[in-house]
């Protein structure tokens, strides 16, 4: 293989060669970044969330009638809802929540030790700790384990006192914290038994994913109290835990079950927790899909170019190929010659492609978060280019075998 001769031949057609090299490198650059986006989207979806995502159904609803303004009416309906849902075939348990795990934003507040100094500065994410007001069995319902202390029970329910005039300010709530937030609020001592600005810690729960968008352990921060916020202006949430395989069956009945208790409700959404998860990441998966489609299109266009480049060269060089054959080159020598030109292009573009991949990665990181490219990924993309380029070159290379040596002697 005469590399120098090949390079020279390419240099004579600088413009055409340059165009193809640019296309190949940009395609490599795009493919690398597409795979990065795709794998990160898949990772996010497959990240262990720490709770039983597969067997949970979420119901979001809101009352439409003014009758619900009476807190005791509100409460009695909620209790009836949960009782009827729990009685359904295939249901393990059901709880109410003021907000849901896997969310952006929500019902947050400061969480700090009760003796935290007034002029102290609280760490950023401790100012936005999700405050879950839910049934006593809220965590068990999610499949989250209590690792220290105890779970909440009926005696921790503050709903009645909260809605009794005069009693609200005296409430000291019993709360359960997730492991990470407990450690963040009480770094130097066990949190169990300590008093916070939101109540006394009676239990520590295992970490599970509550606000996936927060960095580090802040995504696991959460505080749980046994309380039913009995005001009808906000969406209410029930999470229903089902036996394996019963999800579709139960999901179909939930809306009717709730409405059969009291029809003046708007059932906004009945969704499996798994669907909620994919919806949460729909932007990531959506973008990865778009990039994927674009990469395919780009490879397609580049294949067309590789084909045109090889075809053009072959037709231009017909006479010289004929001369070579007349002088003794075999058909496969010519074919290899044509292929080697394409392989050289792929090689050159794999070098340029490094720049393209890095530049595109930097450009994208200005608007979205994207991981940096790694070597393995890069090599994979280069391989795709080699293979698709070779495929594109096949037909023109094959056509050279039809060039008869007699061309060398023709004067026309």
């Amino acid at each position, binding site marked *: 293989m005469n590399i120098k001769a090949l390079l020279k031949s390419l240099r004579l057609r600088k*413009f*055409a060669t340059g*165009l*193809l090299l*640019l*296309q190949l490198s*940009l*395609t490599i*650059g*795009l493919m690398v*970044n597409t795979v990065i986006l795709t794998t990160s989207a898949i990772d996010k979806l497959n990240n262990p969330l720490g709770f039983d995502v597969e067997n949970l159904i979420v119901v979001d609803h*809101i*009352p*439409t*009638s*003014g009758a619900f*303004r009476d807190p005791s009416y509100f409460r009695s309906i909620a209790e009836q809802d949960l009782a009827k849902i729990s009685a359904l075939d295939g249901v393990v348990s059901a709880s109410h929540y003021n907000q849901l795990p896997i969310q952006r*934003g929500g019902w947050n507040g400061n969480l700090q030790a009760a003796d935290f100094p*007034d*002029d102290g*500065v609280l760490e950023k994410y401790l100012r936005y700790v999700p405050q879950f007001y839910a049934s006593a069995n809220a965590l068990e319902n999610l499949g989250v384990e209590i690792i220290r202390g105890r779970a909440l029970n009926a005696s921790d329910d503050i709903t009645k006192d909260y809605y009794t005039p005069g009693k*609200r*300010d005296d409430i000291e709530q019993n709360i359960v914290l997730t492991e990470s937030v407990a450690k963040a609020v009480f770094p130097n001592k066990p949190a169990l038994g300590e008093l916070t600005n939101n109540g006394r810690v009676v239990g520590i729960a295992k970490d599970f994913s509550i606000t996936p968008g927060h960095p580090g352990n802040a995504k696991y921060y959460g505080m749980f109290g046994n309380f039913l916020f009995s*005001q009808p*202006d*906000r969406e209410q949430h029930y999470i229903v835990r089902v036996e394996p395989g019963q999800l579709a069956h139960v999901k179909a009945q939930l809306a009717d079950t709730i409405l059969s208790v009291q029809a*003046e409700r*708007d059932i906004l959404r009945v969704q499996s927790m798994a669907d909620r998860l994919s919806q949460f990441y*729909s*932007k990531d*998966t*959506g*973008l990865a*899909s*778009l*990039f994927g*489609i*674009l990469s395919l*299109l*780009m490879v397609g*266009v*580049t294949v*067309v*170019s590789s084909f*045109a*480049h090889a*075809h*053009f060269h072959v*037709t*231009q060089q017909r006479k010289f190929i004929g001369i070579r054959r007349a002088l003794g080159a075999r058909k496969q020598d010519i074919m290899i010659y044509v292929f080697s030109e394409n392989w050289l292009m792929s090689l050159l573009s794999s070098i340029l492609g490094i720049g393209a991949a890095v530049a*595109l990665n930097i*450009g*994208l990181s200005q*608007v*979205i978060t*994207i991981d940096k490219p790694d070597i393995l990924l890069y090599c994979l993309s280069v391989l795709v280019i080699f293979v698709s380029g070779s495929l594109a070159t096949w037909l023109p290379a094959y056509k050279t075998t039809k060039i008869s040596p007699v061309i060398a002697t023709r004067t026309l």
Partner: protein
Amino acid sequence: MEMFNYYLKLSLRNLSRNRLFFSLMITTLAVGVGVFLANIAIIKSMSADPLPHKSDKVFNISLNIWPNANPSPELLPIMRYDDAMHILKNEVATHTMVHYQTQVYTREVGAASVTSYQAKVRATTPGFFPLTSAPFAYGGVWQGDHAKQVVIGDSLNQQIFGGGNSVGKLIEVDGKPLEIVGVLKPWHLKPLFYHPGHRQAFSATDDLFAPIETALDNEWAINVQSLSTERINSVSDNRGKNAFFIHAFVQLDSQAQINEMKNYLENYSQMRKDGGDFLRETDNRLLDVNQWLELNKVVDKQMLAFGLATSLFLAVCIFNASSLLLARYHSARFETGLRRAVGARISDIFYQGLVESTLVGIFCAILALVFGWLFLQLSLSLFPKLENTSDIDGSLIAIGIAIALATSFISMIYPLLKACHAQLSTTLK
């Protein structure tokens, strides 16, 4: 003109004689333009100016007052009831309004059916309507801060009353009647500049507009964003407390007004500081509509990222078309050489190429618009949240055609120039 017709005839003949080549070239170029255009449609719609006639005169107010020590420097877009009331009292701005977002279920008083309709509510002040240039179809704004009067939007009017002049009719929320004093025309405001945060930027305009005091009186809950540093016992309890939930906007028509407003806010901050509040390190902020939208990063980041990728793809498609044309002009060199030999000037050959490129560009434009539409539907299906964010209007189609023609031209330039300047000789190949 005669020559133009001749070149047109030649171009059509070239296209029909080299069908495979041209379909390949037009298709690959159209895919690049189409995908690019689909993304542009979304970005253009998202970065549109919602109030083009006065976007530089309407301002968001964000205050730097915080009740606790050591506040962070970042300003909040929401303020307290007391702050909002003070801002409403100003005599500087042409229009002032404050608002918060809530939601109710409502139906016509005395309607046979018990079905209540969900209504997104803007609890606000009378200045809202002239400031946002909200279009009234019937009636006008309420009289009195605590009035039990509301204005409704067109879609709610259609839903409850089937349309028409509903001024004077009564609707009920939680059993309490409210009189309709105004009905708006169908109103598209994109982005929703007065409430762009927390993914509200591309939701529809509100269904119901009520006096803010009435909403608080009736305990209509605060939606989207609220913050408090003390316990709030009910919605009406927000008055006078350190509960941040109200947004404020003013219309300032001159630089003098802007300066005066800044002073007014500065004085207020000082007053609150003297009264025991703390001030953040940043100054009070007045941002006009477009600045406000930019701060809220209303244009979807994913779409911007994809925009980068589609630009690269378009470049690749242009390069591809260019190399295809290079091959084509090379194989057409016999005729070009012949024409030059018998007396065609370089400009004649160039003009001929131009006409052909325009013809190709037109076919490409048609195909690109089709591809663009298809890809747009694909994008919207992958990003359902973008539903309201792409308008295919005349200007977009014009942009698409322009890009298709431009790319056709760009990809042709070098190959054509090369063909024009080829060496002449009597031995044409």
